[in-house]
């Protein structure tokens, strides 16, 4: 093919240009799906329960990711402040992942259990009442608005289609029992979702408003779970180096 025929045929030029510039992206992205070590083998990581899932939706809706990352990098100063670096495995059920790209506020990858439910609720309603120097805006409506979980089953099915192991059939449920244990498998069964969500909301005083399922319940349940799935004390120093 003569160079001139490319230059004078814009359609062909576009196609060939796309092919050439996509090489860089393909070389970087495609192998990650084939390389075995991309997602580490680690115990404890599971899909989100229905309540946590709705909390995560609210996290995304309110744009928390624009100021908070969920990605602790393997640096000494990050370890000292936030804890063990994040594993790829820990966000394997995130669609989309919440790694973020900017830390206006602190990283939240291991915020679960760091503060009490009461603190999280009060802080989300009015951050400056607890941390006067904070520039975070308040989210008082979370405590007022009832949580809408009418579509919880559809949301789980949608995630299931992109690979999150929520179960619908008996075979899928059995596989989850095998993988996550009976108790968790029950929570991940799509047809149980509404009941499971209500039970989890009632099981703990997430937002100081027992008897009412607010958006705050869901968000606090999600935050208190973040980074708590993997028990790093089970793994020796440097264990996860083999996956890189």
């Amino acid at each position, binding site marked *: 093919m003569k160079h001139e025929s490319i230059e004078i045929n814009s359609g062909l030029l576009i196609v060939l240009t796309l092919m050439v510039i996509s090489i860089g992206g393909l070389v970087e992205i495609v192998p990650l799906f084939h390389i075995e070590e991309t997602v580490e083998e680690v115990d404890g990581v599971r899909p989100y329960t229905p309540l946590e899932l709705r909390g995560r939706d609210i996290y995304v809706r309110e744009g928390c990711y624009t100021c908070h990352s969920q990605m602790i990098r393997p640096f000494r100063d990050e370890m000292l402040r936030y804890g063990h670096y994040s594993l790829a495995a820990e966000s394997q059920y995130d669609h989309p992942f919440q790694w973020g790209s900017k830390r206006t506020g602190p990283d939240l990858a291991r915020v679960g259990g760091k503060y009490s439910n*009461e603190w999280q609720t009060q802080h989300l309603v009015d951050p400056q009442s607890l941390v006067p120097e904070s520039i975070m805006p308040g989210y008082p409506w979370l405590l007022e608005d009832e949580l809408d979980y009418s579509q919880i089953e559809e949301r789980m099915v949608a995630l299931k289609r992109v690979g999150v192991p929520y179960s619908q059939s008996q075979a899928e449920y059995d596989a989850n029992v095998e993988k996550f244990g009976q108790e968790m498998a029950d929570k991940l069964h799509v047809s149980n979702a509404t009941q499971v969500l209500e039970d989890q909301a009632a099981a703990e005083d997430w937002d100081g408003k027992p008897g009412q399922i607010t958006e705050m319940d869901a968000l606090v349940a999600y935050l208190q779970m973040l980074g708590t799935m993997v028990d790093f004390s089970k793994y020796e120093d440097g264990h996860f180096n083999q996956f*890189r």
Partner: protein
Amino acid sequence: MSQPENKQGQVETTGHVWDGDLREYNNPLPRWWLWAFYITIIFSVIYWILYPAWPYGDTYTKGISTVEYTVEGENGEEKTVTEHWNTRALFTKNMQSSPSALAQQEWVNKVKDMSFEEIEQDPDTLQFAMSVGHGTFGDYCAACHGAGGQGKIGLFPNLADNAWLYGNSYETIVSKIAGGINGMMPAQNVAEDKIDDLAKYVLSLSGNAEISGEAASRGKQAFASCAGCHGQNGKGNEAMGAPNLTDAIWDVADVPGCKGDTACQMEEIKHVVNNGIQRQMPGFGDRLTDTQIRMLAIYVRQLGGN
């Protein structure tokens, strides 16, 4: 602008002609630019050899550069691990043997080997423990207790006063930080006609109100159900975390916020009596090492001005 000419004395063009007379010069690339380009190619080849680079199948070329670090073997002896160059191995190594990590480790070991009393006697070690404690406090504690430990009345205890709900021994502070606290006062069911006297009586314990005669005896009688935790004389009980009610330090009822208005103070007391208290502090034993917690305890204890 002059154009370089070829041997025939003409400016070389690409040979294309547009619109009859438009030609494109075919000048050579600047020498410096060309060399910079060649160097980047050489650089990339060296990089491929040294570091992880090319994917193939289900793995990738790992490069010949390595990182060494030590891990504890099964029998407790140290063994050296050599890993292909990667950021996680570098991080492990950095945590073990970077100059700042080593310098810190030296002091951490000192704190580890010393008792609290010995640390108090050694100004350098004390200063180190205090500065680590300060940093840890800022990250883990200040969110609730405030940057200066001032707390938040009604929600999170003030650590900057010299009143300690659970006592101020180092051992207690360490165990509370590690295990967390479930601070709980059950809501009291006090009859309508007694609660005013009770509130006033409680205020009188710290000299915030005057109460005498029959009202005092009614209040004292109602206080009997409080005495199980707060003690007969209201001095509190550190084993249960029941606060001293006679010291005029208020942690939950916002008595100082009433600025001497007795009716408002009574409302505050009544609110606590009627609703009880439910305060939780998470335990940090899983997040912080024992030595970090000890240094934090040293910092927290001096916040109260001991």
